[in-house]
């Protein structure tokens, strides 16, 4: 999944750049990073507290925001978690939640690489 995420993010960055939105992308990366950091923390906390509403909400937010920066596979995983939670299967998402947490630093790495390339 890591390579896939990196490719997707790079492709999206290229799209933004070619469309004249490089400056906006820089801003978006910063906004996303802050938001996604908070979501990842919220997800784990809500999971451990058994708070389904917060868990679903965090997965929901992570799903759409991640897709906007090109992390579509990561977004799909958040979507899978959201659906399961909505259907009352939050406990069964433990494995997917761990995958999401493991993948997130790699998504951040890819986004950082984009940021560096844009600021050169």
């Amino acid at each position, binding site marked *: 999944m890591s390579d896939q995420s990196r490719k997707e993010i790079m492709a999206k960055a290229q799209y933004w750049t070619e469309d004249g939105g490089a400056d906006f992308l820089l801003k978006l990366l910063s906004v*996303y990073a802050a938001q996604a950091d908070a979501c990842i923390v919220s997800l784990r906390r809500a999971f451990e507290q058994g708070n389904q509403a917060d868990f679903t909400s965090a997965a929901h937010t992570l*799903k759409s925001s991640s897709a906007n920066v090109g992390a579509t596979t990561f977004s799909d995983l958040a979507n899978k978690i959201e659906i399961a939670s909505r259907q009352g299967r939050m406990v069964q998402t433990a494995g997917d939640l761990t995958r999401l947490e493991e993948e997130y630093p790699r998504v951040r790495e890819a986004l950082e690489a984009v940021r560096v390339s844009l600021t050169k």
Partner: protein
Amino acid sequence: MGKAMNKGIIKALVIDDSPTDAETLSYWLTKKLGCAVEIVYNGLDGLNKLAEIDFDVVFLDIIMPLIDGVEVLREIRGFSRTAHLPVIIISSNTDSKTVQSLMQLKIFDYVVKPFNAQKLIGRLSARLAELKGRQTITVSMQLPGEVTIRAHDKEIIMIADDDANFRHFFASTLGTRFHVIEAANGAQAIAASMKYLPVFFFAGPKIGIFDRDRLIAKLRGIPSLAGLKVFAIDGEGEADFPDPSLYDGRVKRTFITQAFIDSFDPCVSGAGADRSPARPLGSIHQFLISATEQVFGMMMSTEVCVDEHQVELDAGQPGTYGAIELLGHKEGKRMTIEFFCDRACVVAMVMRMLQIEEEAANSLGLAHDSLGEVLNMIGGRMRNSLGEEGREFDLGLPRVEERAALEGSAEFGKHSKMDFSFGEGFRFSVGVCFDVLSTRGISTSDIREGMVLARALDFSGGMQLSKGRRLSAEMITEIQRRGVDEIEVFESTQS
């Protein structure tokens, strides 16, 4: 609505608790669609902002903490200054109850999250153009044979050109004489033409990736656009003279206003004055497209668009058929909205609506319930639209059934029909037909024999009933509890 609009710039408020989504939407609205945008990150701030400032349109997220989008929308509708403000829902995941609440609160459109830039721009540019036009356009709806669309003595014309500057010049130069619809590419041009049925169509030399001649040939093949006059817009010295068999004339492509007008006027001689041509079903067709795109799109959390191709139903094809009636007692008219698609399309719909796997979505019961609910919502939207025109229609019950073949397909969508598409090429058809409504009263003793319009009883679960179906003991008890003495049964005869 419209108070905030200044020099054609649409002022938009985005209410979304996700900064990434809000910033992304704001970027597209500002950079690509020329809107002036303000963002707030929760419903409360949104309501405060709306109390202070006039906006032309609101983009509203649904799932938000503290006050969700439905509550915000309810507040907006309850406040006289914003009661008619166009609200576009930003949706990624909504259940059917939420969607139903939204539809009752009259949303203007929906946008699916996560955003797909191209689809977003394509969809919103058409909707925002419509918003600009709302300042001057008045739609008058009547039933077949008498349906007209009037634009305050302005005729609808269309400009398709991928140069935004020229479109802007064209619209601002002619905006006082015509209602101008803009399209930036071929797909938009076809969809908007079918939707707005313009009198004149002006095609620039470049219309996205579509070859101009091919686009015009397509338009010429659409029956509802028969009689459309099409003009090429070319700069001086353009080498390729358009094919005279496809075009009715040529207009000079120049930014010099007088030179443009001098070239334009002879082409439309007499138009742009006091003429309001009748277009059968124009406005009902338009409202049905809007209702279908919105309801199906919201229910499935995906883009649903009217297809540029004309429907040619295969009468021998098995599939799912659905219908819902709107009954005009006073006028003695009945409008039936019909639906038809093949099995694969239904399964795809159910998977999206209920977010379930294919195996579970194969259940006919689930499919029929889901489609019944969708038809119910579309019918409700159409009833509201008719109501705004002072026409009283009652909503009947949806009925959904499997058909080995679409019997009597010539009758399907007898007065108006269109195709819609979503996802990976799935298509379905929606049609409208009208006939004369006659009624007769029956006593409660007849109820047991079925044939009851449950809507007359105000059953919240009325959609579970259908014509010809026997009432359950529970429902009969409920009818008696409400002291209903008489129920009307509606029958129809072809006009």
